[in-house]
């Protein structure tokens, strides 16, 4: 069975986020695997998780799901199904995995219920990129007839902010797309920042689409609350010390290109010859949007001291509360 294809298929569903897709594909792997013992099964699952990780450009959020499922399998009481064969146990695991995912899909509305109380009437909210759980919270606030208006960042390179703006405008929430570089300008008018997350880590910090850290720092400087929304399956046992300590980091990211000496001299002679030619070559082929995006990180890590609260289905937690929950969860 091709676990990566399964994963991609599961992700097609608009409601399924990467960790859940990982859980579903691993439980499917569980069903199809011919492992005869627990040891073999866990080994197969670890291999599946490895191949998922390898084939993903940003393995952080799917890894949270993989870890959760494998921890669940290893801690699953073997005698929970009395006098059952191993294949029945496997079926039980699959069933539990699916039940969990079904349950997990209700988490967003739970979080929206928690978060909506923090949205006052007439507030101006800044959000970043596109997040399902943020959308649900904003929609709920709108349904509760709170007059909110939303700034959303464009969120380059993927430009998902436009998607948020379109969806919000469609339901009648006033929404403006702002440039990523205009966050500091807009912050003065903003009441609080509301972002989703890819993963919440052990330090209580946050891993989210690139640009979240900028927003968090600016919000801190302007003394505006910075709220994060995260389902509990995004809690991840990871402790990044810096941006360069993230698992998504690779040497290619933000690497310096080797300058080509020859070109510079050539250009000099050319520019002295004809200034027009130089401006044409100034827009080097390597400065297209795609080329820039290629060597740039997808996600960044927001430190816990920049975050006011994390709303999740287990409650509204302070960053240190998140780490306490995580310590408790994996021990």
């Amino acid at each position, binding site marked *: 069975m091709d676990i990566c294809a399964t994963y991609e298929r599961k992700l097609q569903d608009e409601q399924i986020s990467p960790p859940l897709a990982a859980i579903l594909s691993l439980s499917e792997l569980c069903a199809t695997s011919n492992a005869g013992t627990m040891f073999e099964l866990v080994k197969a699952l670890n291999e599946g998780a490895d191949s998922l990780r390898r084939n993903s450009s940003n393995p952080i959020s799917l890894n949270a799901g993989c870890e959760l499922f494998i921890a669940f399998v290893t801690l699953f009481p073997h005698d929970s199904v009395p006098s059952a064969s191993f294949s029945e146990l496997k079926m039980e695991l699959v069933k539990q995995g699916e039940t969990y995912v079904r349950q997990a899909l209700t988490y967003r509305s739970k979080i929206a219920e928690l978060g909506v109380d923090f949205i006052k009437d007439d507030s101006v909210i800044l959000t970043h990129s596109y997040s399902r759980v943020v959308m649900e919270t904003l929609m709920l606030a709108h349904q509760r007839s709170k007059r909110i208006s939303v700034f959303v960042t464009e969120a380059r390179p993927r430009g998902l902010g436009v998607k948020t703006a379109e969806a919000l405008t469609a339901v009648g929430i006033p929404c403006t797309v702002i440039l990523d570089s205009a966050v500091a300008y807009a912050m003065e008018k903003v009441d609080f920042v509301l972002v989703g997350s890819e993963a919440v880590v*052990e*330090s209580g910090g946050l891993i989210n689409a690139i640009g979240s850290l900028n927003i968090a720092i600016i919000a801190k400087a302007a003394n505006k609350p910075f709220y994060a929304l995260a389902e509990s399956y995004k809690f991840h*046992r990871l402790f990044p010390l810096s941006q360069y300590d993230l698992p998504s980091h690779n040497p290619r990211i933000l690497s310096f290109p080797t300058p080509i000496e020859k070109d510079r001299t050539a250009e000099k002679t050319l520019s002295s010859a004809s200034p027009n030619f130089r401006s044409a070559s100034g827009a080097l082929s390597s400065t297209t949007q795609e080329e820039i995006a290629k060597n740039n990180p997808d996600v960044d890590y927001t430190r816990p001291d920049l975050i006011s609260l994390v709303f999740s289905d287990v409650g509204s937690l302070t960053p240190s509360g998140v*780490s306490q929950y995580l*310590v408790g969860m994996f*021990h």
Partner: protein
Amino acid sequence: MAATTTSTNETPAASSSQPSASSSQPNATSSQPSQKSMSKAERRELQEKQRAAKLAQKQQPQTGDTPNKPKAKPKTDSAQRRGSGAAEKTQSSGVDASAMDIETATNKSRSLRIFSHFGLTKHGHGVKGDIHPCIIRLALQFSEFRICGANARCIATLTAFKTVIQDYTTPPNNTLSRHLMTHLSPQITHLVSARPMSVTMGNAIRQLKLEISGSDIDMPEQDAKDLLCQKIDDYIRDRIIIADEVIQDLACKKIKDGDVILTYARSSVVEKVLLSAYKEGKRFSVIAIDSRPLLEGKALLQALTSAPPVSWTLSRDSLLPPPPPIPCTYALLPALPSLITEATTVILGAHSLHSNGAVFSRAGTALVAMMAKQHSVPVLVCCETYKFSEGVMLDGFGKNELAPSHLFQTSAQTPNLEILNPLYDLTPPSSITAVVTEVGLIPPSSISSIPMALGRITL
């Protein structure tokens, strides 16, 4: 303390009889009714008088422009006898001893008055019961700083206790589970008199007490003793040795090629982390910051630079030369500001860790951590969970220890100059990024949830 007020009250009277005070004092006290027959209040009064007399005597040479010769004498036995509390403790052992104590106490309290509680050690002489030779040896090693460091001291103590337990026989009409602790208590008291107990020792001894009181009454004595020794071995293995190995693994993951690791003084765990990262083939350099009076960083530097050379390795059919040893920079604390900018990660050790996330560690650690925080360098503290203490500590003044000045004499003694060398300081949780424990990397704010996670109510 009350002593200061009473002494000023009595000074005029005492100084009037000053000339004869020094010589006549023992006689004067011996003419008093014996110590036992005096009431507590009387005894205190007597003591205050003696103290006042001594103080006056000490002040006198200064006013009289005579060179103060007697100054040099009491310096040598500084750490042992300090503070009036210690003097009161020993009073029962004889008037002469207490008079001497008071002399040193007044001498010290002039300069170290607010720190006088630091070196407050109990005296080993007054301990009842016989002390096992291995405990006496260990106490000497502690007081001479031959065995130093939280882990080493804990392991040494537990190992010595194993010998004590094996050499112990339950007296008739008693049971091991009830009597052994009364046999161990004087041993512990003797150790504490050599050097104040570390948190690690305290935790281990508490666990040992629990095991002793829980041991089966009906078990043959030798079996019970063997079982206790087994328990001690398990404790050393699980909570210290294995824990250190897990910490090594976790901390090594945070060291990457090209990193510059800054560390302070010497921690056995940090040393192991750096050496194992080196063995894993990581290429990094180390800045070892050190400080007087202990200069423990030298030992770390020695260990790192004389790392057992990795032999030639075979890789893809070609022999690779052994990697060069870890490049190390050694500097003293004042050089820290110029070196901290080079560092990518700061890794520190700990003496103990408190519930509020504050780290109690070698004096100077707080400075390093704060400086790193100022420069946004992540600070990792390597600390096993058995070093956790349930208490909350707010600063390094409440409880500390002084480096005995006779061991770490730094410069020529100057009259009227008392050197204060606290051994520890407290790093606030705000300047620590994460604590590396055997249960994972944990932000200092969440430390309090660990004992619960380990399923323990008390450590």
